[in-house]
């Protein structure tokens, strides 16, 4: 179980010596003191600065605060914990959660132990701390990768002392959260509403709709084969699934060696029902992860330390069909309850010529596929302190290798569905077949494979002369990625940082990077940029006028400003390249001729995007450090953004390439406040963070608009665009007195729009940006207490001032003419219910009076409030008194209960649906979890 890798390099012939090494900060065995010391240190990838001496903006959360969260990917456990970081989850499918994380509106880069890695599933127990880097001084050293911010994960290393072994087991059950705003309609209501929609659209019910016989059939259910009423969601999904995690880790060390070794297995099952017809394999969408890490640091001599960190992981994902979980959920939205029965009278799968599919067969009778991802990560470093040259000087060299491979094994088969189409002479029903039953195939393919190597040489200096303190580092690094068949992508450069403080009162910091990437003209060479940043800070509480204020422990003002960049990873798009054009046929046998043409228009002026990042803030602790707060204002301008210009004319005759012309500004506030109090056995804490984010589109070469309200420039980035709605037309008189709509004759129940240019016609000139332009507010709050052996904590996370746009076949009726309809449509406009209508008149999106032409265009009618606050996690634990457990040799034992996504308060818009997944995707799970942790 224990892998102890020791590296002994004898350089000068003398053996390892037993000498106590003094670190910049004391590493103590006591856990809470370690926590406090970590909390007061900013670990900013290339340098560490004590919080009180730093002018940077960053936020940190310790791994032990979230390492019992029952999720596979760690970003999901960070939601609401760090001011400025917002994490959202698209759906609940294990290893396909569609999550995205944004830091101050941008996409940050993930670093693990100081090396950039886009790895989002590792063992939770490995994580010692997660820090987000937000300002120019901390990001400038990242050069052409820094402008999106960074998330830095530091893994646990051992510490000198007795070996500690910890085992944790967690078992939980997941329940699916509601993933649609309203339930789908039963077949009878569906058919009735469909016929009504046909009449609204000017089509005949006789030729296109449901006959009275069919309506009777749906209502009475007397012939479920011909007039079915199937709730497909119940057919394919079950109401609970298990999740389990097992973790074993050990750490320890002495004055020569320290180690941390971790093994973990996580098993998350999916919500699909399985069937007895598949005896040898599973068609559920589950995931299993196996993680192993070994971090070993060695003191080779009193001056040289070395380390080797190895991580390996295997992720196995099972899927119904060929990674078909998403397809099953799309089918659920596209298939009404009246479409076809699950099974026909003769036992074959039901289907119809319109829906040549059977959703149950799609799930259990399509075979299965496996996705296997294997990753290996290895870091080695060698560090030499050069105190004999100059006290505080050190040099370090490190190298790292990373390899990642994903393989898909596809073992799928197809199925036939049958539609009854009459009765034969002998009175038996005849069926028409669609599709075929095939044997199960077996293929495999590589999904993706990439590897990278990284080298870094750094030299640092940390010393205090009387009142002047210096901490400096300069380094050179190179990161080389090889992905599939592409040529290597390399980023390399030199960067450095100097921090100076005078009497720990006045602070100044400088960072810079001279760094660039390859794949630029000419000849795929490097393009370098210089990215400087500077920060200033003032610890006001050390000034004489505040020295006597006893309740004020720390008060610091700080600001920073600098440049950063983001490299465009386009693949040599400066080269004008030709490839095979669409096929052209020639000759008497219609042979495809060889054709060639431009792939795209080359842009020889590509460069990296730039950012100018400004941050200013105040940080303080009061009342014997029981209350701490931090408020910051930031304003970041991103320029040379790679976009296709807005005024791209068809006269060019070829698609425009991306050009570096865009400019946007993101600005806002981040705030954090913590209160913690302790009385003997009882302690409690309350903390909250809030982040206000706003943006502005400064330039995008927008096409000429005739009126100034039609421009998107000057409004927040990604703002909704369309018509301004003013309710529904209630009657014909209202329509005749109203401006005409170009190309449409409205009827009562249609949405009416505002005529912005007053020309009496509603058309494209009456479109504008709509929706709130106020800042979006991201909230998080953590409260908890501990009393003797009991500990409790709860995390709330929410978003305010958010708006959602409702559309698509998860909300609207009869999309494409044949998809589902929902209970929300029962509130539609009819002449009788005109005054209480909450939805426009129904339409099938077809016919001479097709309502989709008017009602389903982008407008403010469909924009609703999307605010929510969630009880994200809650945990209650009990540590069995030490004297009891020590009798059986256990240092400590803790049992705990926790829950994830247990309750959400959300705007009425969602009607109880999960505010992050309300468009019918794989449901996110609410998890009830029980666990046990044993330490030896």
């Amino acid at each position, binding site marked *: 179980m224990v892998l102890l890798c020791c590296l002994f390099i004898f*350089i*000068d012939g003398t053996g390892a010596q037993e000498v106590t090494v003094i670190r910049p900060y004391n590493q103590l065995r006591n856990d809470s003191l370690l926590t406090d010391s970590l909390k007061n240190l900013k670990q900013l990838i290339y340098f560490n600065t004590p919080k009180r001496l730093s002018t940077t903006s960053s936020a940190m959360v310790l791994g032990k605060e979230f390492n019992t969260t029952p999720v596979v990917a760690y970003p999901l456990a960070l939601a609401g914990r760090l001011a400025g970081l917002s994490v959202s989850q698209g759906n609940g499918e294990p290893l396909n959660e569609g999550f995205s994380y944004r830091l101050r509106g941008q996409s940050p880069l993930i670093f693990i132990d100081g090396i950039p890695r886009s790895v989002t599933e590792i063992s939770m127990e490995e994580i010692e701390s997660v820090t987000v880097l937000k300002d120019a001084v901390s990001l400038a050293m990242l050069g052409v990768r820094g402008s999106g911010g960074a998330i830095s994960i530091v893994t646990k290393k051992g510490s000198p002392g007795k070996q500690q072994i910890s085992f944790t087991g967690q078992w939980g059950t997941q329940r699916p959260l509601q993933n649609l705003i309203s339930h789908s309609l039963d077949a009878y209501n569906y058919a009735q509403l469909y016929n009504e929609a046909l009449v609204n659209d000017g089509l005949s019910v*006789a*030729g*296109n709709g*449901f006959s009275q016989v*069919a309506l009777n059939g749906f209502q009475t259910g007397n012939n479920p084969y011909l007039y079915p009423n199937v709730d497909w969601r119940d057919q394919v999904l079950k109401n609970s699934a298990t999740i389990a995690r097992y973790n074993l880790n050990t750490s320890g060390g002495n004055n020569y060696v320290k180690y941390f070794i971790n093994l973990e297995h996580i098993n998350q099952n999916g919500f699909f029902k399985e069937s007895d017809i598949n005896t040898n394999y599973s068609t559920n969408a589950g995931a299993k992860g196996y993680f192993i890490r070994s971090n070993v640091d060695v003191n080779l001599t009193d*001056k*040289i330390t070395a380390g080797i960190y190895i991580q390996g992981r295997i992720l196995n994902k099972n899927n119904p069909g060929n990674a078909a979980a998403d397809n099953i959920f799309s089918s659920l939205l596209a298939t009404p309850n009246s479409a076809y029965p699950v099974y026909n009278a003769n036992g074959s799968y039901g289907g119809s010529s*319109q829906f040549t599919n059977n959703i149950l067969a799609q799930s259990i009778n399509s075979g299965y596929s496996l996705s296997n991802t294997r990753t290996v990560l290895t870091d080695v470093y*060698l560090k*030499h302190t050069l105190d004999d040259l100059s006290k505080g000087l050190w*040099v370090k*060299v490190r190298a790292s290798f990373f390899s990642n491979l994903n393989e898909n094994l596809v073992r799928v088969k197809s199925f036939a569905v049958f539609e009854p189409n009459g009765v034969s002479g002998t009175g038996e029903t005849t069926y*028409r077949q669609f599709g075929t039953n095939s044997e199960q195939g077996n293929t495999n393919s590589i999904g993706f494979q990439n590897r990278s190597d990284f080298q870094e*040489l750094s030299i640092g200096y940390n010393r205090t002369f009387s009142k002047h303190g210096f901490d400096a580092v300069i380094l*050179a690094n*190179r990161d080389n990625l090889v992905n599939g068949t592409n040529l*290597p992508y390399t980023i390399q450069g030199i960067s450095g940082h100097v921090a100076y403080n005078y009497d720990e009162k006045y602070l100044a910091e400088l960072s810079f990077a001279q760094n660039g990437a390859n794949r630029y003209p000419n000849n*795929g*060479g490097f393009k370098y940029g210089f990215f400087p940043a500077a920060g200033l800070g003032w610890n006001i509480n050390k000034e004489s006028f505040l020295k006597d204020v006893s309740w004020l422990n720390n008060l610091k003002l700080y600001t920073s400003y600098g440049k950063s960049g983001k490299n465009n990873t386009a*693949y*040599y798009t400066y*080269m004008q*390249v*030709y*490839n095979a*054009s*669409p096929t*052209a*046929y*020639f*000759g*008497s046998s*219609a042979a*495809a*001729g*060889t*054709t060639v*043409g*431009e792939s795209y*228009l080359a842009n020889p002026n590509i460069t990296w995007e730039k950012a100018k990042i400004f941050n200013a803030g105040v940080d303080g602790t009061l009342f014997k450090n029981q209350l701490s707060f931090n408020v910051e204002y930031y304003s970041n301008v991103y320029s040379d953004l790679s976009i296709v210009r807005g005024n*791209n*004319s*068809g*006269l*060019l*005759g*070829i698609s425009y390439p991306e050009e570096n012309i865009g400019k946007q500004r993101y600005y806002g506030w981040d705030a954090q406040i913590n209160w913690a109090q302790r009385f003997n056995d009882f302690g409690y804490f309350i903390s909250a963070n809030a982040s206000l984010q706003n943006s502005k589109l400064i330039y995008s070469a927008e096409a*000429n608009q005739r009126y100034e309200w039609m421009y998107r420039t000057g409004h927040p980035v990604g703002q909704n665009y369309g018509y301004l709605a003013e309710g529904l037309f209630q009657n014909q008189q209202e329509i005749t007195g109203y401006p005409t709509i170009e*190309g449409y004759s409205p009827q009562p129940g249609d949405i009416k729009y505002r005529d912005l240019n007053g020309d009496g016609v509603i*058309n*494209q000139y009456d479109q504008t940006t709509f929706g709130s332009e106020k800042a979006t507010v991201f909230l998080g709050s953590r409260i908890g207490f501990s009393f003797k052996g009991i500990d409790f904590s709860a995390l709330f996370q929410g978003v305010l001032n958010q708006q959602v746009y409702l559309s698509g076949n998860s909300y609207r009726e009869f999309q494409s*003419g044949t998809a589902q309809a929902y209970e929300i449509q029962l509130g539609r406009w009819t002449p009788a219910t005109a005054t209480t209508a909450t939805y426009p008149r129904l339409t*099938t*999106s*077809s016919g*001479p009076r*097709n309502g989709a*032409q008017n009602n389903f265009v982008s407008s403010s009618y469909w924009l609703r409030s999307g605010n929510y606050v969630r009880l994200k996690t809650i945990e209650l634990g009990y540590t069995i008194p030490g004297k009891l457990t020590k009798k059986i040799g256990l240092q400590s034992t803790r049992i705990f209960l926790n829950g994830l996504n247990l309750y959400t308060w959300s705007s009425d818009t969602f009607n109880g649906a999960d505010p992050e997944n309300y468009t019918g995707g794989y449901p996110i799970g609410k998890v009830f979890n029980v666990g046990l942790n044993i330490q030896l």
Partner: protein
Amino acid sequence: MKKILSLLIIALTMISSSCKKFENEPEERTTETDVFDPTDKTGTLSTAYLLGIYSFLPAGFNRIDGDFLDAATDDAVPSSNRSGISLFTNGQLTAVNYPDNNWNNSYTIIRRCNVFLKNIGIVPIADAIRQRQVAEARFLRAFAYFELLKRYGGIPLVGDKVFALEEDLNVPRNTFAECVDYISNECDYTAANLPNGSAVIAAEFGRVPSEAALALKCRLYLYAASPLFNGGGIESNNALKSLTGYLTADQNRWLPVISAAEAIIAKNYYKLPTGTGTTAYSAVFTTKINTDIIFSKQSANSTVIENANAPVGYVAPTTSNGRTSPTQNLVNAFPNLNGSAYTGTQTEATQYDNRDPRLKSILFYNTVAWLGRPVQTFEGGLDKPNQAFKTQTRTAYYLRKFMADFSTSTTYSNQSHNFPYFRFAEVLLNYAEALNEVNRVEDAVKQIILIRARAGITAGTGNRYGISVGITQTQLRDLIRNERRIELCFEEHRFFDVRRWKLGSLLAGSFQGLKITQNGTAFSYELQNVTDNVFNDKYYHMPIPYAELTRNTSLLQNQGYY
């Protein structure tokens, strides 16, 4: 000291070991010097570049949201209620939702031709080949301009220019007259420099013959001389009027139609193939190489047309979609077998007997044989099941033209389905129309007789094929227009012909289909209105796509559109 040194050496070797040589740029890619290669005597890739331009030529058949362009005319209605083609006929057409936007595609062809013309001089191919290829590129460019001209009127002419990324693209529209002159000059040049149809070998079938350039010139002047463009513009302001047509009428514009047609006939290669009647007419579209097809869009052999248009009750091997519902109005246009106009019943099965043989090649009607069973377009029949969600014919007819004869087979097999751009039959019809307009009535009659003879109409007394002796210019004009409607139906002519004749009223109002009820073994037929179409004067011209107006501030929109 030694320790530091050894440490540094280790560090440096680690870093420098990565400075090994590798490819700096992907060598496997094809660049401009590979395509237009000064050392390539055979010009392999430059020829491939030219052939690539052919792939951008417009497709035909069911190209507008799954429907024929002719489903927006009085010839047919779309079977589906949700097809974008309805925007042309339901009064909802705007510059924003215009479904036939070929602006980008045409300028892509023009750009590629200009790139080719600019660079072909570098490649050391034989002069004869170079002359042919240059002419091909110039023809394809002229064809792209004509496709823009017939929809929008005058468009920006960019000449030989290849635009760069930073150039000013606010190019104004040229007048209609300038565009016609430009295309005409290009046609004259290319007609003189392309090989004759007889000289294009079978392996190169599909490449432009000289007669295609003459056919383009013929059609160009046919449109330019027609009432809408020849001084009859609907615009109130002269600036717009000169963009969409000539300001004043001039009968001499018919003369180039005549000379171009005569030039094609004189080359004596393209002619109406031998054979008469239904099978001869069908064979024009399913036999890949025949002397009626001058220039067509080449495609692989397939069953695409059968699958898209055959009656919906046929499922071999996949469900047919029956997209097009020809109207009863089209059926009424077919003359009798002897060539006289049809005046008989529309509500009996007998209306299909003793008619122009082309009717059986163009339409499916109730009880005709297909894939081993009769077509059932009566209410509730296999081909008109009246079920929810089911797209089916609205007129009890389906489109049969372009399909091979599968009436007794059990399944489809791949057929040649090349969409014809220029046909010899069209040349004869253009010739006849122009001759009639310059008052050479009897010469025009001779051409119509050739068409009718191939169609299988009986010769009748005096070999007049049903054309009365002493027919007047006005009567012959109507006859020629009707003959053109039938002969060239569903080849994207009717949509533009009705507009250039300024007969927009033909596209308005209700069109009819049949409602057939089965009573035992007999059927009863009833006429019913299937659509209520709208036509406004602004529909004579198509709107410039709104997106283009916002990017090019020099463009003027056609009258009536925003």
